[in-house]
């Protein structure tokens, strides 16, 4: 059951989701990529290997799915900017806060500010996500 409904107040913080990335999570056999090899990343101008952006963003999607369930699977919307890299051995935490609601036919679209922080507190991903809840 979704934990956010049409009556959940604007300003409510969503539950936090976090995970530790490890270099070996990004292994692709013996293929060296910017996600699993520091030298490959440095050839691209990065100081070291970086986590796969969509995998980091998935922390936000997990948060949205837990909060909105069905209204995320059908009706979920995402607009994210990847501002900073998350390192391939970094700790990342997804946050969200309800910033508004809009009636959408017989449902309510709940719009959230969302972001992912790296272990050093830097906001790596920022943006908005929204999902539908029953009852206009």
């Amino acid at each position, binding site marked *: 059951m979704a934990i956010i409904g049409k009556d959940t107040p604007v300003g409510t913080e969503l539950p936090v989701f976090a995970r530790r990335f490890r270099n070996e999570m990004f292994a692709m056999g013996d293929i060296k990529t910017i996600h699993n090899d520091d030298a490959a990343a440095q050839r*691209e101008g990065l100081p070291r290997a970086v986590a796969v952006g969509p995998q980091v*963003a998935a922390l936000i999607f997990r948060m949205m799915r837990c909060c909105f369930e069905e209204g995320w699977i059908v009706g979920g919307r995402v607009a994210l*900017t990847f501002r900073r890299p998350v390192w391939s051995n970094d700790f990342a935490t997804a946050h969200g806060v309800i910033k508004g609601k809009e009636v959408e036919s017989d449902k309510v679209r709940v719009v959230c500010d969302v972001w992912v922080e790296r272990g050093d507190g830097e906001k790596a991903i920022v943006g908005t996500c929204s999902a539908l809840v029953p009852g206009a």
Partner: protein
Amino acid sequence: MMSEEARTRVEFDEHGKRTTYDEIEVGKDLGSLEWVVGGNDIEKQCAIDEDFHPWFALDSEWNGVIAPPQIQYRPPRWLLSRTYNIRGVFYRWDFENLKPIRPGEKITITGRILDKWIDRDREFMSYEAEGRDAGGELVFRTTRVHALDVVERTAPRKGAGQDSGIKQEKI
């Protein structure tokens, strides 16, 4: 911090020549790709994202297992990579989930190049894609932005990279 080696932009990688900014054609049709999600793909996506739910493994209110919506990241990227070898870094990701993605269902992905621009001495390009089921209904739509390089565009494009924008077409 940037290594000395990376003062150049990558010209070639393991899959050949990188696409340059001038080669990107705004409005270009990226063609289409047929994608069928396998049950193992869903299991793998859940494991990659640590995103587990009975809907993704057992059953759902949509009459059967469904995939986590973010499984749609890769197919539009494959479609782009069939035309352009862009590695760079991912900068923006917009999408909308319109229908659940089901295992065994054929989804046809189409896309086109939306725009390209220069900002803060970096080159960017955007493309859009959508996925439709066998009945022609929209399952998802997405818009993405990639920076072509981490290194400034004023740096010469003559370096050799290892990683490539062209990946195996599998989850």
